[in-house]
């Protein structure tokens, strides 16, 4: 036991002490934040401002196309579309919107000319605005009062409650959390699994394996590495957790005292629109936080992270022990292990949309895919979506699964690690499992 501890310590230390550990630990959250924030920034900021020439032969749109989101409409008279559509760029326009003399009941032939294909945002914008104008005109003709219509419109939101405890929850939140945690597990399995494999390969290629094996049992060496690298992963999570909590604590300092006060009052004291919006946002956050059983989710996440990692990393270690110098071996040998992980992520993507399908249920029980798929289903609620027996079965299978893979991998590992110079096929390795001694 003392020796395995020494090995764990070494594996942990050599990885944590590397500069790349600190850099990666800090870069990964930045990367994730980036993937979330950048699309929002783009959406908010929109595209560069555009001037669009409008040639309106129907005279229906004059002064009715408001400038918005960086799009400026410039009505032009006295120009013909046939000639102007070839030279709008010379006048500094991004495009030309051409509205022929249309029949209000059967409008057709409205065209937009631009050099490149119009962006999806612009397309949506133009369609909406043109339709708006036509709708208003038709209402006017039909004698419908716009204000009345607005009053009649309903905007009720149903509270979705699930389970015996009638927890309020939103599928959107469950979807996001499920997808996120399933995906993180996928990345962990791949990254840390590969890390274990590379560690084993390093020991084999640098020929220290036999030196080590003369002091410790092969199984101790393998488990020491696996546990040591798991420790690195846990430390990384811990750092991220602390970072997240620090940010959460520091966040109110960036908001004005007034806003904080408002929030503290639960939004009741909202004094102006800004504060009301802020309070509304906070309420939404509270709703998201409240709609999920976080303590269950986090403990399950840690379990499935460790369970999935132990399940696969032993297999990765076995594969690492089979590889000789030839890096081409790595690809062909890792394929049988990466395949179920990739299947797992695909089942996860389906499960997060449809958490009660047979595929999702069985995917979350079979240990090859359960770490990813179960994490995708859990935010939808226990015992609502995921029955207790499903969770229990999944946990038992995963524990049994990693005991089995570790045992199998140990058998392959202890022979593979001492085989030099010869290409080992998976078939041969399978024979080592059944061999005695």
């Amino acid at each position: 036991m003392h020796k395995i501890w020494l090995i764990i310590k070494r594996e942990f230390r050599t990885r944590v002490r590397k500069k790349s550990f600190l850099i990666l630990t800090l870069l990964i959250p930045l990367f994730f934040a980036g993937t979330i924030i950048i699309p929002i920034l783009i959406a908010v900021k929109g595209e560069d401002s555009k001037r669009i020439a409008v040639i309106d032969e129907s005279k229906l749109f004059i002064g009715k196309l408001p400038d918005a989101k960086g799009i400026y409409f410039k009505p032009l008279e006295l120009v013909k579309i046939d000639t102007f559509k070839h030279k709008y760029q010379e006048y500094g326009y991004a495009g030309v919107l051409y509205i022929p003399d249309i029949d209000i009941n059967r409008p057709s032939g409205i065209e937009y000319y631009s050099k490149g294909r119009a962006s999806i945002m612009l397309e949506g914008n133009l369609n909406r605005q043109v339709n708006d104008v036509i709708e208003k005109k038709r209402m006017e003709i039909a004698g419908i009062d716009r204000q009345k219509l607005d009053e009649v419109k309903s905007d009720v939101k149903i509270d979705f409650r699930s389970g015996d405890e009638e927890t309020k929850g939103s599928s959107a939140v469950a979807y996001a959390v499920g997808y996120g945690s399933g995906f993180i597990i996928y990345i962990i399995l791949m990254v840390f699994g590969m890390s274990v494999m590379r560690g084993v390969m390093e020991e084999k290629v640098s020929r220290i394996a036999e030196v080590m094996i003369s002091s410790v049992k092969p199984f101790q060496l393998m488990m020491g590495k696996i546990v040591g690298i798991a420790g690195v992963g846990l430390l990384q999570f811990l750092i991220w957790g602390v970072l997240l909590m620090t940010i959460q604590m520091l966040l109110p300092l960036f908001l004005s005292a007034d806003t904080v006060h408002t929030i503290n009052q639960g939004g009741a004291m909202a004094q102006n629109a800004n504060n009301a919006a802020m309070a509304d946002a906070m309420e939404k956050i509270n709703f998201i936080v409240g709609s999920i059983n976080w303590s269950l989710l986090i403990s399950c996440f840690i379990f499935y992270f460790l369970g999935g990692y132990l399940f696969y990393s032993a297999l990765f270690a076995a594969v690492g022990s089979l590889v000789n110098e030839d890096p081409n071996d790595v690809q062909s040998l890792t394929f049988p292990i990466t395949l179920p992980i990739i299947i797992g992520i695909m089942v996860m993507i389906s499960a997060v949309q449809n958490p009660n399908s047979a595929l999702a249920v069985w995917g979350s029980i079979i240990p090859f895919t359960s770490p990813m798929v179960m994490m995708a289903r859990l935010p939808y609620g226990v015992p609502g979506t995921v029955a207790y027996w499903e969770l229990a079965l999944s946990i038992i299978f995963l524990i049994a699964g990693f005991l089995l893979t570790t045992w199998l991998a140990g058998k392959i590992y202890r022979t593979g690690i001492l085989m030099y110079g010869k290409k080992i096929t998976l078939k041969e390795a399978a024979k080592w499992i059944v061999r005695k001694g």
Partner: protein
Amino acid sequence: MNLLEVQHLKKYYATHKAVDDISFDIPRGSIFGLLGPNGAGKTTLLRMITGIFYPDEGNILFNGRPFNPHEDVHSIGYMPEERGLYKKMKVGEQALYLAQLKGLSEKEALEKVKYWFNKFDMNTWWNKKVEELSKGMQQKVQFISTILHNPSLLILDEPFSGLDPLNANLIKQEIFDLSQAGTTIIFSTHRMEQVEEICDRILLVNKGRKLLEGQVQEVKQTFKQHLFRIGVGVVPNFAQMATHHFTIIKQHDHAYTVKLNEDSSTNDILLHFIRQEIPVTHFEEILPTLNEIFITQVQKTEEYA
């Protein structure tokens, strides 16, 4: 008393018999040469002695007791032929790590590592990464890591490969010193001149079987061809050399290599020369080198196969 007794050891693989019924004893404090061509089963044999493999059959007695891999590995230092170190790890840390894996406490390990680094003049390497060292320097680190825990049995598989003559000598001297201090050493190699120089006893294996075993001098006696070299002051004529006591194998200026015929003794050779009044300048028996014994014995088994 024997430190190690190996009795009818067997290890069979699906396709071949790696070790097939091998027995031998190693007296405490001796230097024991394990010889054999590539693929003879030496490594498998050593892996069983170091507890890496379990034998299919047979017993290993260590210190008179059945070999217990868990405990006894602490008394064994093994430098395998396929050896290496963690390339990215610092030399000092690495030595400490390996010593602790052999059961030393952190404090003991530090003491030992410092002692040996001093002795081999390696103190400046402490904070260097292994990959920054030359191959010969790495070999020295490897050797020290093997003996840090004062093993009572030291197993060296091709210990001199990759070493320049200077460092090879240093290690050789250390092997002798350790042997003097009571360490039993198993020395595996195909370099026969080293075996002759270093070993007390040898075991020759091929195809998993024991070909011969014994003290180096005994073995040489067993396989001697009854050849003698005799130096003469005056080259005799053809008639003077006719005798039934020996046959001339080779003549070289003032020296003859002769083979003693059966029922004759060495004195018969000398008497013959004296009677013929040929002045003898020197006379010696030619013993086969281990290399010759090795080659003929291995070839013999290859022929039977």
